[in-house]
């Protein structure tokens, strides 16, 4: 904490105890002592008539240079590393190179970490910080926040990246509040500022209508959550090794206040969309749910995966896990085929970085054609079978 009370100067008047909005000062042996409720607000500083309380205002500013290295949170579920981690390692390597002279590190929490550690080295991590405990086998906000926050204090990374998954988005804000730093959500682009070597985090806002680039100039670490499917995966280098550094583990069972009763997997695979090389997506133009039979047939034939627009999902024609776009999954396949999708900005935000976009729509003025490499104005029920024929 940045607020300190000098035991020599304290006269035990207890004025500061009353001034503290957080009940963070207690009298112990007639001296004021700061407890862990302190938020470093400084309300007590001027109330002290003896100059016994000081607040180190510039501490964060001075200390910035102590922070180095790029960290990736190596999210795992049931002993399997979440795919976005490899995308973050790919991006993290670029960031580490652009900063210069820093390591790319992963922080891995769980149990039986051997195999996962090896995969992280092969994907480019120079160092893997490990926390091995039965208490960390499954994600909990309490357990993971404590361990990672303490590791950040211990090893002082300059940048920490998290996948913007349901776990990453639960965890990262809590850590940011605990270690008192900034966090930028759902980034789609990360760069290093050439001058300051700080990170430039670009993210969509207003449903993808606006992009904002965010800096975190005076706090460390700089932290981002990154949308799955946006960054390019690191190519694995078989046999590549690195350094394993176990973190100091102070976690106790009582630190975890929530209890997981059950974890149930319902969808066959959450990664299929982000990993797919070909995606065939259907929208409102299908007319009804049966349209997805044709989409599925086509996708199966070309080794692709079925996607959908929000309109098709909202109509109940297909499960949400297939939704592509701002509120669904962001995808970057080699070929994206949009069938009967008009191209709302929210949808475009989730697929327009695909290498090749083919759009089939009855309306020649559909916005989807504005991002399509190849646009076909016509009935998808006629065009798709012909395309299937031509490809096979």
């Amino acid at each position: 904490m940045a607020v300190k009370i000098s035991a020599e100067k304290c006269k035990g008047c207890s004025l500061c105890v009353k001034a503290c909005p957080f009940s963070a000062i207690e009298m112990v042996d007639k001296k004021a002592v700061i407890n862990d409720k302190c938020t470093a607000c400084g309300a007590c500083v001027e109330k002290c008539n003896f100059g016994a309380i000081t607040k180190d205002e510039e501490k964060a500013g001075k200390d910035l240079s102590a922070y180095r290295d790029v960290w990736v949170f190596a999210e795992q579920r049931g002993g399997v590393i979440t795919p976005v981690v490899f995308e973050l390692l790919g991006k993290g390597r670029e960031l580490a190179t652009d900063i210069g002279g820093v390591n790319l590190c992963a922080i891995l929490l769980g149990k039986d970490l051997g195999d996962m550690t090896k995969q992280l080295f092969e994907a480019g991590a120079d160092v893997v910080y490990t926390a091995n405990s039965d208490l960390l086998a499954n994600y909990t906000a309490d357990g993971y926040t404590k361990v990672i926050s303490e590791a950040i204090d211990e090893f002082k990374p300059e940048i920490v990246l998290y996948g913007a998954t349901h776990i990453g988005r639960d965890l990262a804000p809590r850590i940011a509040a605990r270690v008192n730093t900034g966090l930028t959500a759902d980034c789609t682009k990360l760069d290093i500022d050439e001058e300051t070597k700080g990170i430039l985090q670009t993210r969509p806002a207003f449903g993808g209508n606006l992009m904002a680039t965010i800096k975190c100039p005076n706090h460390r670490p700089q932290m981002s959550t990154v949308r799955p499917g946006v960054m390019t995966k690191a190519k694995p280098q078989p046999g590549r090794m690195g350094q394993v550094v176990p973190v100091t583990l102070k976690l106790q069972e009582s630190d975890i206040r929530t209890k997981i009763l059950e974890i149930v997997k319902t969808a066959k695979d959450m990664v299929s969309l982000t990993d797919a090389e070909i995606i065939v997506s259907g929208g409102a133009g299908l007319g009804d749910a049966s349209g997805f039979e044709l989409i599925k047939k086509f996708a199966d034939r070309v080794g692709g995966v079925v996607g959908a627009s929000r309109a098709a999902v909202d109509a109940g024609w297909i499960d949400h896990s297939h939704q592509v776009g701002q509120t669904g999954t962001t995808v970057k396949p080699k070929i994206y085929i949009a069938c009967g999708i008009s191209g709302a900005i929210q949808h475009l935000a989730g697929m327009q970085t695909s290498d090749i976009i083919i759009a089939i729509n009855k309306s020649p003025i559909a916005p989807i054609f504005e991002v399509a490499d190849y646009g076909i104005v016509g009935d998808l029920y006629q065009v798709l079978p012909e395309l299937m024929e031509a490809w096979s």
Partner: protein
Amino acid sequence: MKILVCVKQVPNTNEVKINPKTGTLIRDGVESILNPDDDNALEAALQIKDKNEGTNVTVISMGPPQAADVLIECMAKGADDAILLSSRAFGGADTWATSNTIAGAIRKIADYDIIFAGRQAIDGDTAQVGPQIAERLGIPQVTYVEEVLKCEDGKLTVKRQLEDGYEMIEIPTPCLLTAVKELNTPRYMSVKGIYDACEREITVWNETDIPVSPDEIGINASPTKVYRSFTPKPKGRGMMVEGTPKEAAAKVTEELKKKHFL
């Protein structure tokens, strides 16, 4: 039982369009609404109130004076009390400073069992303020709540949505839960509710009313700074393929083969 619900007034971003000539956002005529996930958060609180007599539901929002509109809407749906945190000093806050402000107000309220918030707001989509409030208050959290199964004295059982399934979690109170749209279907305002809500007072607090330090709130206290904003560049129209479905399909296939995509 006492339940707090954190809500936000947001522009209806589904209505926001880009002026194609200037590349800027057209905000005129875009209505302000109660953030959709927050509506689910409120509904969850009201459903608990319906089942548990003597439950008080208080809604809290931070925003400009006109954000009172959504608080009136919440009261018309059944919330008992409303608090608006409004001051220029709160303006321009990022999630870190926003959560400090709201947590400060909750500390002042002091007595609560459950805090509900929406998973995320549609203008920022960050999903950060809920967990950060929980952290500031030192209470446990579950985000992405899609079902509240049990609400017993001192603990709750909730279903947390995952990308590929769900978790069942038991959590002690006081705690913070964030709601997704699958949690429930929000009720409409009743005529009597609207009439009553308009008669009621909204408590307005500024920075002097809550236990927070001036260097923890607003734009200056925010660790993240917006460096620049811009409208995304459209990828640009490619080739429109003419002809019958058969001809068009053949043409596209030929092009893809030429570029070695097939």
